[in-house]
């Protein structure tokens, strides 16, 4: 196992997540894609730490990624609830008017 090997796994995870986030219609499924991408980031940070700089400072970054995941999730749930309440839908397409 080498850094390159781990990073390729990271790239695979990230791209699966990206595919999900781009292709899914339902907000919750989009969130699952995003979570998967953050999961990849988590693994990447841990791998770089282990293989390049096993000092502790970088581990703090892992904590920050974890916190980002929680924040994303909580806000995602809130937005999904709000969308569902206001227009009886949770499809991203139907929220397109939010863009303009």
């Amino acid at each position: 196992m080498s850094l390159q090997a781990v990073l390729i796994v990271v790239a695979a995870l990230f791209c699966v997540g990206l595919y999900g986030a781009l292709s899914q219609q339902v907000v919750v499924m989009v969130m699952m894609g995003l979570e998967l991408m953050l999961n990849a980031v988590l693994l990447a940070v841990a791998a770089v730490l282990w293989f390049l700089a096993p000092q502790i400072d970088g581990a703090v970054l892992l904590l920050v990624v974890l916190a980002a995941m929680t924040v994303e999730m909580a806000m995602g749930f809130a937005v999904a609830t709000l969308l569902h309440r206001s227009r009886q839908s949770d499809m991203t397409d139907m929220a397109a008017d939010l863009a303009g």
Partner: protein
Amino acid sequence: MGVLSTVAFWVLAAAAVAFGALVFRVDSMARATYCLAASFVAVAVVLLLFRQDYLGVVTALMMVMEMAIMAVYMVMFMGMNPALMPMSMVHGRRTALALSAGLFIVLTAGILLVPWPSRRDAPVADVTHALGESIMGHKMLVMLTVSPVLFATIVAALVLALPRGRYDRFGDDLRRRPPADPQPGGVGR
């Protein structure tokens, strides 16, 4: 790294990616959610291989918890019963597939071509202890930032998701007691 941990790594990596892909392939919402949870747990165990004991366990803890709640939202907002019903709710599938595949190729090429430096120094003995020292010591600013952000998230999420404010509960002059709640709580606020 011994042979055992290399084998473990590849098994876990394959599991993480496979479960991640299954999230968008299976037909049941519950299965999709718990596939994601399984992917997270696999990554958490990989973190253990990298001697990040505390962070690995905390990742598993948080993600299983999140996914348990996520499953409720999935069922609530998307809805599929336990039966394996074929369903697909995708848009722009080909574009998304092309984009992700392209990105994967670019990333892999980059990973293989970049000359990665070698390890600078030896790992610390007790990572958990060192992490604690670090976030309570010279990296305290990070924690000081993260905690208000998390708190703000709780408040913001509640404001977004709750349909009722105090005027709905206590009346226009905020004098109604007990408050008009669809379901009274246990403390009797």
